[in-house]
């Protein structure tokens, strides 16, 4: 009961907000602004604009939202994740409201991403199923990719115009359109909108997203979220629109989406998939109209937005109820539902009539306007008219398939009547009645809802009155022809579906969803291969690469020097060169050593060479230290002699050569830079201060000691800590060895 109560209260709240939005839209004279700074550096402000166009969307979101929440009360109980689904739906509604009310484009983008992520969780609501998880990922990746394009576009827009407020961008229209960045901005914004609004070739995520529960599909994937792209394009029409690129891009993609969506719809047997493809087609239609961009087309788009939201949400809810009623959504297995639940048939029939565009539904007015817009548009090819006509006819067929076919009996026996609960039935019926009422009173809807929002968008009145009856004219004839064709196709739809399937199968290697799957698969394969090669676990390889990296950079540093000469006079000294030769010989020999003892002793010789250097160059204390360290090392190695692993000098020859090369290169360049150090300071070294002040200030005669314990005591403390920690490490290692024995 508690769950239902929250559904009802959410539904009530949305309904109140919806009515308020209508009232506000009727009484709003000028847009209402609200703004705070957030991150001005990138143009981000928390700024909202309430104008009639936003309010039109608020009406849609809250209106449909209210019914969807109501529907949830009937649909979701029994689902164990129902509360989560409901909470995320609420979050989604809020994000969507934020999206349509934002004045700042970057703020809009933030809400845009919110809707993406909430949609991800809703699509994956049945997360124990693999397909649901994959569909969620697919939807997310496609829309996030589009979102990134949009983000870049927004940043470019900021660079071009210096502001991100929609209201001031409109004033800067000329500046933006003249900018060399304009085509890039437009294409990227369109990419964002197209992915969100499931335009061809990004449409495939939408049918996949049908794994979401029906209320979610009704809300997000037909009525609201997928319209966000359309909203964005509409908002940007006054800023970026009315150019050749805008026109061609939107009309081309819109037309393609329209026809692809409508044809694929007929080949589906899952009602929700069928509805999803018709949604794709409808979204294509909207893009197309925005591409046309004439006054009539924009008005038609607004009407069609309302029409589509009403009938499509209703039909998705009906699909959900059918699933509840019959336990399946498969059109091939569904029949005689009309007898089982006449009320449900009624709930399906009203929206389907609107979808077909029959008078006196609002859908009829919408379709008339669209045809009219296409017929009188100055720059449109006949081809597009044909595409539009076909898509419309196929939509009629789809409506019949979804709302008639499952309900007519196929066999004589009558199934038992079953009652569906009120929340499952009422919302689609209410939406049907709304469509009908709007169709019967078009002037009221037009004057109070659509005309103000058109004005808010375009800044001028449209002078177009909505009427139910225009008389017999070419538009009406087209409408009738559409209906007839649609009905005819319904009659032969099984052949048509088979044809579409054949084409689909034939073109499947190029299908976008296939390309997506391939891309993800190849990406993961490539990633694994690449990582296996690079992170292969061999320490030897890692060390070689690390040394090569250093050599490469040192080599680059060397070649960047304008003056490469180095003073070798130091090497000419007899003592020096003898020590160097001796140490080098020992180093080379140690590589070739055949036993551990030999290697250790030869390395000792190298250390001794270093000690001799200290002796000859006036640092007897350092020499002593170095000598003691060398000695200690020998003692240590001798004391653990018996426990050392066997000496294995047999590295493969190729590897040896590789290592030799790396070592030599590094050695050469390092030596070069060290030799440069021979010309020492032209500045006074700080050591002079130490020598002068050790006795007087720090009261010590031995300067080195004073440095260690006073001038730079912190360093010494650090190094002592290092030793102490190393000791702790050794202690614990020895302990584990003991316990293991």
């Amino acid at each position, binding site marked *: 009961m508690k769950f239902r109560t929250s559904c009802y209260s959410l539904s009530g709240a949305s309904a109140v907000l919806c009515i308020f939005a209508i009232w506000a839209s009727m009484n709003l004279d000028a847009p209402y602004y609200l703004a705070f700074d957030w991150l001005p550096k990138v143009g981000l402000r928390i700024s909202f604009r309430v104008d009639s166009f936003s309010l039109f969307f608020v009406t849609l979101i809250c209106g449909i939202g209210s019914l969807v929440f109501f529907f949830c009360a009937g649909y979701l109980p029994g689902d164990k994740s129902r509360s989560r689904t409901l909470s995320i739906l609420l979050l989604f509604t809020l994000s969507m409201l934020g999206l349509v009310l934002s004045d700042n484009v970057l703020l809009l983008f933030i809400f845009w991403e919110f809707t993406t992520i909430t949609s991800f969780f809703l699509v994956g609501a049945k997360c124990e199923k693999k397909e649901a998880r994959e569909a969620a990922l697919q939807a997310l990746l496609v829309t996030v990719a589009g979102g990134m394009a949009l983000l870049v576009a927004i940043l470019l827009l900021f660079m071009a115009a210096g502001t991100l407020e929609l209201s001031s961008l409109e004033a800067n229209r000329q500046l933006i359109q003249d900018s060399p960045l304009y085509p890039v901005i437009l294409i990227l914004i369109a990419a964002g909108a197209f992915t969100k609004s499931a335009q061809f070739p990004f449409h495939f995520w939408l049918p996949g997203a049908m794994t979401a529960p029906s209320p979610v599909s009704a809300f997000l994937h037909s009525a609201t979220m997928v319209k966000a792209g359309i909203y964005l394009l509409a908002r940007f029409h006054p800023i970026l629109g009315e150019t050749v690129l805008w026109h061609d891009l939107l009309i081309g993609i819109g037309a393609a989406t329209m026809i692809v969506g409508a044809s694929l719809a007929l080949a589906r047997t899952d009602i929700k998939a069928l509805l999803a493809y018709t949604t794709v087609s409808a979204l294509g239609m909207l893009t197309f109209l925005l591409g046309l961009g004439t006054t009539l087309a924009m008005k038609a788009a607004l009407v069609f937005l309302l029409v589509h939201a009403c009938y499509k949400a209703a039909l998705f809810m009906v699909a959900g109820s059918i699933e509840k009623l019959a336990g399946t959504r498969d059109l091939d297995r569904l029949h005689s539902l009309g007898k089982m639940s006449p009320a449900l048939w009624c709930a399906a029939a009203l929206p389907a009539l609107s979808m077909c565009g029959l008078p006196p539904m609002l859908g009829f007015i919408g379709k008339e306007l669209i045809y009219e817009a296409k017929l009188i548009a100055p720059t449109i090819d006949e081809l597009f008219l044909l595409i539009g006509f076909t898509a419309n006819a196929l939509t009629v067929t789809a409506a019949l398939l979804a709302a008639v076919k499952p309900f007519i009996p196929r066999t004589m026996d009558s199934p038992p009547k079953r009652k569906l609960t009120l929340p499952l039935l009422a919302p689609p019926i209410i939406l049907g009645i709304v469509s009908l009422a709007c169709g019967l009173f078009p002037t009221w809807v037009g004057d109070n809802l659509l005309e103000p929002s058109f004005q808010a968008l375009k800044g001028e009145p449209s002078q177009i009155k909505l009427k139910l009856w225009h008389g017999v004219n070419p538009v009406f004839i087209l409408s009738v022809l559409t209906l007839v064709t649609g009905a005819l196709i319904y009659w032969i739809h099984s052949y048509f579906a088979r044809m579409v399937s054949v084409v689909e199968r034939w073109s499947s290697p190029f299908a976008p969803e296939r390309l997506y799957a391939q891309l993800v698969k190849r990406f993961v394969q490539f990633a694994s291969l690449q*990582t296996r090669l690079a992170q292969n676990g061999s*320490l030897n390889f890692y060390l070689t690469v690390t040394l090569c990296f250093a050599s490469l950079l040192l080599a680059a540093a060397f070649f960047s020097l304008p003056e490469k000469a180095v003073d070798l006079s130091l090497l000419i000294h007899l003592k020096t060169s003898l020590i160097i030769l001796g140490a080098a010989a020992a180093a080379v020999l140690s590589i070739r050593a055949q036993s551990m003892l030999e290697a250790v002793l030869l390395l000792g010789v190298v250390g001794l060479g270093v000690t001799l250097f200290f002796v000859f160059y006036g640092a007897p204390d350092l020499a002593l230290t170095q000598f003691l360290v060398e000695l200690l090392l020998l003692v240590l190695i001798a004391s653990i002699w018996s426990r050392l692993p066997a000496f294995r000098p047999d590295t493969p020859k190729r590897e040896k050569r590789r290592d030799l090369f790396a070592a030599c290169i590094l050695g050469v360049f390092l030596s070069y830079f060290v030799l440069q150090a021979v010309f020492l300071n032209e500045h006074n070294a700080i050591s002079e201060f130490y020598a002068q002040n050790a006795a007087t200030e720090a009261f010590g005669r031995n300067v080195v000691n004073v440095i260690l314990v006073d001038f730079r005591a912190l360093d010494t403390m650090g190094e002592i800590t290092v030793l102490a*920690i190393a000791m702790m490490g050794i202690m614990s290692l020895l302990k584990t060895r003991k316990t293991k024995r």
Partner: protein
Amino acid sequence: MNSNLLILPAIVPFVFALVMLWLRGREGAARYLALLSGVIQSIVAALLFKLVLSEGTQTLEIGGWEAPFGITFVADLLSASLALVTSFVSLAIALYISVEKDEPITHPFTLPLLQLLLSSVYGAFLTGDLFNLFVWFEVMLITSFVLLSFGDAKQAIGGAIKYVLLNLVSSVLFLTAIGLLYGKTGTLNFAHIAARVGHLSNEPLLIGAATLLFCAFSIKAALFPVHFWLPASYHHTPAFVSATFGGLLTKVGVYAMIRTFTLVFPLQGTWLQTALWIISIATMLFGVLGAASQMNFRRILSFHIISQIGYMTLGLALWSPLALSAAVFYLLHHIIAKTNLFLFGGLAARLCGSDDLRKQGGLYSSHLPTAILFLIPALSLAGMPPLSGFFAKLLVLQAALEAHSLISVICMLLVGLATMYSMIKIWSEAFWKPAPADAVRPSNRTPSAGAYLGVAYLALFTVFIGVGAGYVFPICERIAGELLDQGCYIHAVLGER
């Protein structure tokens, strides 16, 4: 401008480490001490940050030996903010392990060593002396090596050896560079070196030293292709240890790089800038590919560190006030989000009995609060608004666009998408997928209040850095301003000399 506050962040954990060692064997006490230490560090770091924010760069001459002769600690805004963020990490980790029953501490030295590690991180952030920085690096290296070697698996030792050997290469290069620099400039104090280097440009010796420092810090920061030590070792330690490593170690390398290549050897216009740019791009791409290929929770995160380091160094390579402030913003965001994700890695492993994503599952239905908290750092890392990662990426992106660096922009977008992919992989496998039938479930499956507090504490900052970007970013801009004005740092340390 001489304030003893500067040394306290390093001293506090050091003293606590000693006390813990003294109390050896009393593990419960050590947990409370870690908590207390975290609180005190936070207070000290916050006071320091406040002081620096209001009164500018602070210095402390250790032992009273005036700069440049003694060792000087310098807290400019960058150092102070990093110290502050480090103290957040320290407290969160102390909270995470505060409850005995759920995070067994396998070794009595673990907690004291962790305190020493923190001490060295603070030291590295706050020191103003090149050789002293090296010493802190050494403390950090040996501490982390010993911590890594505590893992009892054979692989853990193998990882630890790779870790220490590759990092020793870095130490050798670093030390050589110090020698060369001292040979040329006769000083070790950062500001003093910078002042003297300013007079001698294009000296072969200096270029050699700069290149060596560049290599050394690249290894420390785990840039491609010298990142190998990181994915080889991080996932073998207990979660809270790898969280400290993942959050802080590489970032000290990045800090050292930013400090050196703004103050001593300004990158702009040198060939090293181009090199860093190429390396950054390669690092971003490589890291994310690695993450996409893994199926181990914490290994994915390890590879992500690499990828994200690329973003930070890209900010440095792009070299503009915006790019630098973006890099600093990224650094601050990343330390917090990454530490938190590693803690979640530990939590998930504890709840599912395995670190392997294939053996995990079902946490979304069984542990909703954990799942929701996980989403905050995960989505932040993937760049979802309005969390910190979104702004970090947005700012670097903006900087790249302003620099007309098309390749950077494209790579950033691709990497962003792939990051999203691998974060969702973790979500989908560990949280959404039903637990595999043959999974062995640990008996105790409720995370303690301490663990929740720890992760929630960090999640809070992730949200704050995002929602409060309008407050955090101006600080980063100020930092970038300070970094680009070398004279200001030199003056603060050396005065009119």
